């Protein structure tokens, strides 16, 4: 391989990857090492590749990604904590031909917004839900989430999550897959290049499902790290995620084209 000069690298014929125009130039507010930035990018890449931006309206949650609308360069609404699936329902019902998605964390989707999530899924709203699960409340400083693993430490389970006292982690993705209103349910991650490619394929499929009018929710969980909340380096947090989160939240498709696998 020849050594390329800077002039060579910037030549159009040497372009291997272009940053999506659907991300703004604003510096991401996420901690270095966090998976949110990658998740944002692949969603925006998919919308750009499918040329959907003029029809798409996104709904941001409360949590670390409350400011998703600062980074996603499309029309966005910011919802109250947990209410994104209801807000998305409102938009989609009055604009059945537009593309509507929510981007939610685990506290938002699986705790305070459980009812809105279950009922939007059960009604089979034709929307996309992207669910980023890092097992902790990141924005408020690392409290226990509905998805915090048994024994896992957080600022409100400082001695580890005692499931007899604090309840069990909720596998929301497996739960919604049981509902007849979900059409595509999958769990992905963004910690390695191959995982990112698979996650992007799933997100693309989810948006294609909505575009093609397939009846029901396309639900994509992305298991992610929270190096700040877990009090680890980014690298250690990804190793910990693979060793601890993924055995409990296994990756892969759960329901495809309305059929449980």
């Amino acid at each position, binding site marked *: 391989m020849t050594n390329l000069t800077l002039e060579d690298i910037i030549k159009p014929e040497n372009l291997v990857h272009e940053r999506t125009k659907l991300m703004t130039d604003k510096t991401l507010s996420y901690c270095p090492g966090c998976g949110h930035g990658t998740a944002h990018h692949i969603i925006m890449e998919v919308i750009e590749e499918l040329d959907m*931006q*003029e*029809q*798409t*309206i996104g*709904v*941001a949650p409360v949590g670390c990604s*409350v*400011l998703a*609308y600062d980074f996603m*360069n*499309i*029309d*966005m*609404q*910011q*919802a*109250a904590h947990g*209410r994104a699936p*209801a*807000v*998305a*329902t*409102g*938009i989609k*019902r*009055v*604009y059945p031909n*537009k593309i509507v998605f929510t981007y939610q964390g685990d506290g938002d989707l699986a705790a305070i917004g459980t*009812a*809105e999530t279950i*009922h939007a899924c059960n009604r089979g709203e034709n929307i996309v839900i992207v669910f980023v699960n890092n097992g902790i409340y990141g924005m408020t400083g690392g409290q226990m989430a509905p998805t915090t693993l048994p024994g896992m430490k957080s600022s409100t389970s400082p001695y580890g999550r005692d499931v007899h006292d604090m309840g069990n982690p909720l596998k929301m993705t497996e739960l919604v897959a049981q509902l007849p209103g979900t059409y595509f349910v999958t769990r992905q991650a963004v910690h390695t290049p191959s995982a990112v490619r698979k996650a992007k394929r799933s997100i693309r499929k989810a948006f294609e499902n909505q575009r093609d009018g397939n009846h029901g929710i396309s639900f994509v969980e992305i298991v992610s790290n929270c190096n700040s909340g877990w009090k680890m380096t980014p690298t250690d947090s990804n190793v910990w995620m693979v060793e601890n989160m993924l055995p409990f939240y296994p990756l892969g498709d759960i329901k495809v084209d309305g059929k449980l696998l």
Partner: protein
Amino acid sequence: MGELKLMKGNEALAEAAIRAGADAYFGYPITPQSEVIEYLMAEKPHERTGMVVLQAESEVAAINMVYGAAGAGKRVMTSSSSPGISLKQEGLSYMAGAELPCVYANVVRGGPGLGTIQPSQADYFQSTKGGGHGDYRQIVLAPASVQEMSDFVKLGFDLAFKYRTPVLILSDGVIGQMMEKVELFDQMPRLKDEEIAENFEWATTGRKKGTERTIITSLALQAHEMEAHNLHLQAKYKTISENEVRFETFDCEDAEYIIVAYGSSARIAQKTVQIARKKGIKVGLFRLISLYPFPSADLQKLCKQGVKGFLAVEMSAGQMVEDVMLAVKGCAKVEHFGRFGGIIHTPEEVLKALEQKIIGG
């Protein structure tokens, strides 16, 4: 003349939603206003105008569906009764913050808590002082007839879009449940998607290439930005209070005493005025139509004309009376009378209160 019908207040409200060109109604059943969603479901408005009607899983979900559709520029409505309206306060605060238009109705029942299903006017504070968290106000219209249950839907949408604010139709179990003759206004067209995209630049309808994106949010993490937004909201509320005061008066020209009331209490008090006039008591009725903005200057004017006393009549332990006191600024006596917890006062009880608390007091 428009179509004449004999209808319940709740049914008139629902029919008016269709005729006002509403794009959607999201609701959840609760007594005494369940007829609104029942009527809409039975009418199949999607066949009449294309209007969407959806029964949500909760009042919380319903108001957030309203938020989403309103944020996309649509004419959206919801309704409930007191306990359900409490649940909607989160969404209403967000809508006030994000400056989204909507019309919603509260067919008030007795509280606090689960309370009772009988009529009440005990949600005045919640309705006029904000309701949810943060510094905000909303336009509050108080119908006193089935006719106004219909008319205020149309007026409500006009005001909601003029000022980009939630508008509350503050009804009660009497007005919602009683049947009266109503003249329905003619069907108005729903706006086309292209008209919405063109006319409401604030609405999220999809970012066209080469244009800036639209964001609906009530969040401003920087305090100085939040203060600036609050100042903008307060300026809007000032404009509303200068331009949208609504009331009507009966026999106030020569009145020595004034009954101030709204909604079903105003209907009852009108009878009290008739009885009292026959007895030679010079009393008039000041009926509030807009509760926010409150007609303070007009009450003050009456006071300066020589009115000796005001009796605030409301089916509550005394809420609206505080605004009457603030309006007249001590220039005349102000007292409260009202039965509450689901009990409706009679015209005779109101007269007795007038004689004891204002004339003889």
